[in-house]
Structure formats: C-alpha cells, structure tokens
C-alpha cells in the first residue's frame, strides 16, 4: 500500500507498470484501518482478526465495495 500525491499520480504509477488500478482510500481511512488492525499487536494475548472481525473493520470505515470482499 503506497501513498501518492493524488489520483493522477496513482494512474501514472499503474500505467507505467501495466497494472489495473486498485482502490484508493483517504489517509484518514488508512489510519482508522491501521488503528483497528494493529492497536492490540503488542498485547501478549494478541490473536489474528477473524474474517468476520476484519469485515466489520473494513465496513466501519466505508470499505464495502467488491474490492474489499475477503471471501473471493
């Protein structure tokens, strides 16, 4: 996951690599995703999120399109 100056830079980066465009989110969405994903990582009782927990996290920040579907 890379940070770009704007959508035009994303398009240019994808075109230069002949890659299909993925999805862009705002840095604030990325922060909320990172916070939900990693805030417990240092805890001794840390465990990986379940599929359902990850789906809840993604949808809580508005990531609900097919691109964010974890089930294929």
């Amino acid at each position: 996951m890379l940070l770009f100056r704007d959508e035009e830079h994303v398009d240019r980066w994808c075109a230069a690599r002949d890659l299909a465009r993925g999805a862009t989110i705002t840095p604030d969405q990325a922060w909320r995703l990172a916070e939900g994903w990693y805030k417990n990582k240092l805890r001794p009782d840390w465990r990986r999120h379940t599929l359902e927990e990850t789906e809840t996290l993604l949808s809580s920040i508005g990531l609900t399109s097919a691109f964010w579907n974890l089930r294929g």
Partner: protein
Amino acid sequence: MTEDTKDLDTLARDVRIHVFREAAATGQVPQAPDISRALGRSEADVRAALHELAAAKALILAPNDGNIWSANPFCAVPSGFRVAAAGKQYWGICIWDALGIAAAVGSDAIITAPCGDCGVGMTLEVRDGHLVRTEGVVHFAVRAHHWWDNIGFT
C-alpha cells in the same frame, strides 16, 4: 497435541511477545540469534517458532534467509516509510504499517513517505489518536481477498 507441539506453541508465544516488545521499545526488530540469547533457547528452536508465527501471519519472514522481514507493523530493515514516535525511529513496509506503528505503540507520531509515483516526500501526523496532518491518497493495488497471496507485492 504432542508435548513437542505444545512446547513449540509456547515458545512461539514467547518469541512473539519478545519480538514485538523489543521492536516497540527500541525500533529494532530482533533476529533469531538475538531472540535465542534473550530467551535461552537454541537458535534452531527459535527459527522453528518464527516459521510457526509466519504461518499464522503474525510476522513475515524474508524469502532468502528466513530472517524476520517485518514483525508487522515493524519493518526490520530501513524503508521509505519512516515513523518518528515516542522518541524513536521506526520503519513500516507500507503506509498502512507505518500508520500501524503509531497505533501499536499508542503514541503521537510523524510519518514520512514518498509518493509512490514521483517520490516527493509527504508527511502525516498522528496526535492524541487522530490523524491531524494529512496529504495524498492511499492506493491498494491488490484486492483484499488476495492480500496474502504475495504479501511483499501487496
């Protein structure tokens, strides 16, 4: 579950706790020889535990030498995604992990990263649990279902 399996599971937990505490406390991700010395276990046992942790997606091993590449969100080697937090310097393997470092250490943080296209540096800032300085957009090239197919590319 055999005694050997239970022992490996217990060691993997100890290794995980040690690795992440050290990474957060120092900004340096310890490798197998360091972990072996710290926990008083053989390096072979520690490497087996690291492979178990990688299989559980608790961390990522480098493909060539089996060293920890990222005790994600803490990258073991310098990268373009720098995080200054709690008086220390950290690196993430991507912008998600760079932000994740601020979340994991629970600290205010300044994150600097280059534009993936043109390389111009950008700065994000986390303060009191909020992103208070922001610029740019974050691009995910890989659909969520395929993130772990090739985590290095993702």
